[in-house]
């Protein structure tokens, strides 16, 4: 397949922005394009995509090029449903997995670790032998080779615990914290196995992207977030000597608290939507890149017009791009209901307003 995009320019744009370099031509566009978007652009089902690394890699490249994004990644290769599938397979519990034609597979939360015995006997998956992971890692390698865009590995503890143990995990915090820590430990072990396989198949990642769903007030206290996820991230950092970024999909995130405890180079959160939060964050943490801010897939992107999206991108750029370290992206994964003109309004608005030096009236 022929590339239509100058990926070398995108690589520079994204990684220079994250590192705070001044040599950036314009604000980068990172697209959260999941399987749903790739299916929408290519017409393939999820199972078709997952079955062939070559087809999957080409489909991903086509989609991200179509969206005119500066980023590219294998959407299922993170510590979410794919990791639950790996655990389900290693523990003969594939009934816990539900497949869909045009959206990512899901795990029935709590079905894999229903009780203490399930946790005690939980087998750690071998990612090198799991078909979905083998194909996903090979896909990441092919994307690396074709676009020269170094693939970022995504790891997590809580999002996996959440899949395996479901609502019981939250009750365990109060009634059996040792059992919960045992499960976290096993998930950590599995994440390190994933990292080893990533190194072997894809190569050294430039960054680690933590899908840290625990860092949210609606889920747990900050102390619990540090206990059940934070301490494991610190251990990952000790072993993986590359800069870490934090994603948090929550309505009341602990970003300001967590960056005091853990050294992240960038944060990416879906909320709060108020731009003032991010203006203050940038002021207080000028060396941490902000990915996203407040372009909302459930507001202007879903119900607005391309002009509304353009206005929102402009607002984000005016407030967060001067001085660098800002990557523009919608706050969460792009769903079916968002129109293509609204999605494409983001790179168009960046082209209009996002060239450095930022100079908007």
């Amino acid at each position, binding site marked *: 397949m022929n590339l239509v995009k100058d990926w070398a320019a995108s690589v520079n744009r994204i990684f220079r922005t994250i590192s705070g370099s001044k040599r950036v031509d314009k604000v980068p566009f990172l697209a959260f394009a999941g399987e749903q978007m790739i299916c929408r652009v290519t017409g393939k089902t999820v199972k078709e995509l997952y079955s062939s690394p070559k087809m999957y890699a080409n489909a991903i490249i086509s989609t991200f090029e179509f969206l005119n994004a500066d980023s590219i990644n294998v959407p299922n290769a993170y510590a979410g449903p794919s990791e639950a599938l790996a655990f389900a397979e290693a523990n003969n519990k594939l009934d816990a997995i539900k497949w869909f034609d045009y959206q990512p597979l899901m795990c029935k*939360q709590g079905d894999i670790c229903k009780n203490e015995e399930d946790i005690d006997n939980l087998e750690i998956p071998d990612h090198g032998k799991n078909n979905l992971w083998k194909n996903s890692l090979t896909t990441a390698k092919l994307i690396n080779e074709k676009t020269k865009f170094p693939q970022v590995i995504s790891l997590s503890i809580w999002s996996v615990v959440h899949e395996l143990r479901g609502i019981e995990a939250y009750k365990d915090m109060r009634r059996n914290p040792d059992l919960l820590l045992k499960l976290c430990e096993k998930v950590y072990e599995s994440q390190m196995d994933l990292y080893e396989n990533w190194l072997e198949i894809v190569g050294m990642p430039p960054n680690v992207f933590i899908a840290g769903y625990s860092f949210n*007030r609606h889920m747990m*206290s900050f102390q619990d977030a540090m206990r059940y996820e934070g301490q494991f991230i610190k251990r990952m950092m000790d072993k993986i000597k590359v800069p870490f970024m934090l994603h948090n999909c929550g309505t009341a995130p602990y970003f300001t608290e967590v960056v005091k405890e853990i050294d992240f180079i960038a944060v990416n959160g879906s909320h709060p939507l108020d731009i003032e939060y991010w203006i203050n964050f940038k002021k207080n943490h000028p060396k941490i890149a902000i990915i996203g801010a407040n372009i909302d897939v459930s507001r202007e992107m879903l119900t607005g017009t391309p002009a509304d999206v353009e206005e929102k991108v402009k607002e984000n750029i005016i407030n967060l791009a001067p001085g660098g370290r800002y990557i523009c992206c919608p706050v969460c994964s792009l769903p079916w209901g968002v129109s293509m003109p609204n999605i494409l309004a983001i790179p168009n608005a960046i082209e209009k307003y996002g060239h450095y030096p930022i100079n908007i009236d």
Partner: protein
Amino acid sequence: MKEKESLEKLKGAILVGDTNKAIELVKESIKMGIQAKEILNGAILKGAEEAGKLYEEDEYFLPDLLMTGDAINAATELLKKSLNKKSEIESKGTILIGTVEGDVHDIGKCLVVSLLQGQGFNVVDLGSDVPPQVFLEKAKEINPILIGLSGLMTMSISKMVETVQLLKSENITSRIIIGGGILSRESCEMVGADDYAKDGWEGVKKINNLLLNSGGE
């Protein structure tokens, strides 16, 4: 005096989510001859209210509310069974709830179910990944005062639209609330729901407000 002390202890057990203690204290209160309504309103619901207040003050978190929810449910179930006088604890109405098709996330929904049951609602939980047609069929069967559609993922919004459209096209007049962290006022209007909530506790409060404003059943 002893009765008051027993109810205070029960309230405390509910507040800290100690299910075993709550069961023990409900038994003790019944033995003392305290009326079921008094046990429910004077201890169980007071404990729940206090837990909610602590949650709003950042003293309590989801794990604490879930533990409280479990204790409430165990206590009210025992109360109903032991007295065999269900009329004494009247149902506040039936609520139909479920996570929409294509989404299996259910933690917020489970919290809402647990707390609403504890508040005296009859809650029919359809589980997760529920197709619009199933919501419709059940709504026709049980005629709920309110229908709650839950979903965590951005892609669940379009399924909420589909479900609400189907319910309305079949003249289901129940109030509708949608729940999920990704929702906004704009997406709520798009879905056509009466209200939305971003987390489980907010959902419980808004459901009570919606029903209060519509005069209940």
